[in-house]
């Protein structure tokens, strides 16, 4: 029984880590700030939930499990609030979401007023 | 090659330290220089902690419940090794460098704040935090002062 729980828990930790990795890829590949925030925060909470659940299964009914539950509650409270604040700040500083069919923008085309991108292109 | 593996930590620490040194020397911006110094300082911390690690060791907390993991770790190893280097059947890492670095990190952030405060005052006095521009401004000031005092 314990052995089976260990395997299930380990599998959940691996799936959670993979989910976080996909989130990181999303942050790099998505086109604008809002989708990137979406990728980061959603996979963060999901990945952390799965990983903590897996760790809880491995440790069984111990005080450690209670601590893991606290950590989970904390992550669930902070990550969405941080994502909200980030999106708020991005909206406040004039980032526009890219709406419509996705198209590849030629690299020599003038960029939109995106401070981050502007800085990056000037530094190259 | 085996020396590379057994001394990998020290080599990585030296690379990070030299990165910090390079930032301090190559960048004229005072804030960037403070970041370089922070990196340099952090590499010293990494070096101390690397020295303190004992193979197969566990955190130096001798609580009965907490050392359960330490006992499991010790059980994986050759009994002679544990008997020679362990205490009470558990191998611990060295706590002394941990103490030194723990206080050094908090002192480091306090001194970093002092450096940044100086940078802020420099910005207020000269209007810039670039070392070259500060030098240019002081040179102009000095030239103006000499011209005033010239007979």
């Amino acid at each position, binding site marked *: 029984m314990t052995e089976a729980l260990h395997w299930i828990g380990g599998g959940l930790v691996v799936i959670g880590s993979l989910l976080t990795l996909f989130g990181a890829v999303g942050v790099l590949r998505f086109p604008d700030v809002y989708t990137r925030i979406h990728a980061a925060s959603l996979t963060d909470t999901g990945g952390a939930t799965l990983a903590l659940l897996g760790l809880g299964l491995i440790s069984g009914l111990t005080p450690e499990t209670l601590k893991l539950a606290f950590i989970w509650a904390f992550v669930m409270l902070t990550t969405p609030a941080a994502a909200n604040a980030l999106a708020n700040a991005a909206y406040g500083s004039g980032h526009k979401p890219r709406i419509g069919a996705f198209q590849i923008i030629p690299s020599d085309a003038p960029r939109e007023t995106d401070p981050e991108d502007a800085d990056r292109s000037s530094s190259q | 090659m085996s020396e590379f593996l057994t001394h990998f930590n020290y080599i990585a620490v030296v690379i990070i330290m030299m990165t910090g040194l390079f*930032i301090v020397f190559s960048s004229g911006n005072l804030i960037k220089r403070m970041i370089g110094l922070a990196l340099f300082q952090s590499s010293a911390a990494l070096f101390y902690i690397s020295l303190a690690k004992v193979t197969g060791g566990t955190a130096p907390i001798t609580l009965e419940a907490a050392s359960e993991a330490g006992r499991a770790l010790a059980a994986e190893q050759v009994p002679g090794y544990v008997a020679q280097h362990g205490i009470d059947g558990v191998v611990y890492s060295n706590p002394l460098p941990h103490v030194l670095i723990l206080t050094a990190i908090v002192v480091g952030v306090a001194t970093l704040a002092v450096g940044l405060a100086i940078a802020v005052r420099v910005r207020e006095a000269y209007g810039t935090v670039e070392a070259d521009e500060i030098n240019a401004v002081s040179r102009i000031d000095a030239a103006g002062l000499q011209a005033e005092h010239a007979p």
Partner: protein
Amino acid sequence: MTGFAVEMSAALNVVLLLMLVAIGLAVAHTRNLLTAILLMSVYSLVSAAWLMVMDAADVAFTEAVVGAGASTIILLGAILLTRGATARVDWRAMVAPALLAVITGGLLIYASLGLPEFGDPSSPANAYVGRMYLERTGEEVGPHNVVTAVLASYRGFDTLGETVVIFAAGLGVALMLGFGPRATLAPAPEKMGDHHVVLRVAAKMLIPLITLYAFYVQFHGDLGAGGAFQAGVILAVAVILYGLVFGLRETIAAVPVKAARSVAALGVMLYAGIGVICMVNGGAFLDYDYLFSPQVEAMIPANLLGDPHEEHHWGQHFGILFVELGVLLTVSSTIVTIFYGFAGRSIDAEEAKR
């Protein structure tokens, strides 16, 4: 000698160190100061994970709290007051520093090959005084966490020095940024719209929890990872979070500037005062075995901490408790003072006057 766990920890060590090297190089490469600061925050988190692999639980805790929390906020406050990215540097100007770094690094790597192997239990650093602390702490001092015992008792004088340095640094920042025409409070930001409501609600829920957690870390330091330095920074971070979300005016109404400054001095005084009491009772400076005179020690009930049969070092126990309290007061109020210094300064006061 190498079990699965040992090999895994060696692999984690290599991977995390390579990540640290990569982040360090990225900091050197970027010209954007904001990027550099955020990368330093990431660097601190990764190095906290690495410190856990190195069994340095207390240091990992400190690094996570200080590096990712306090120092990032201070650096952000500083670039807000200095404005601007780093100027472009001609590549020819970088040749000399790069050459110097490569030569020095090569010499250091060559020298480091003479160091004892990584993880060697019988190296001079690990075999003598470090091992002695581990063997004797249980009977001489008491706390289960050897790091706390060494920090507060064996090396208490050293820690007093560190506390004074932190206090002096806070004093320095207060003197440089705390006075003058620009230190007047920046005009209150226009009334926050409803779009910050999520942040405010989350902060209201979190701040009491963070404060409670700081005290848990403080008083649990004898048993597990934690202690006054970490707790002090966590307590300060709770105040800073309040300041970031609700504005500086409200924060100063709750924690006045003068209170923060005097509490920092009070902490150092408490620490040094414990040392003086030990001297008055006939011991050396900070020798907690002499903290209580024998009459006072006889009055302490044997079952104060549960089991009456277990032998307790009451002087050591209370000495560490009071000393850590002093460190908590100094560290937390110093970081709050530093935050007030940077946050309360307005860059445009003089420029607006012109």
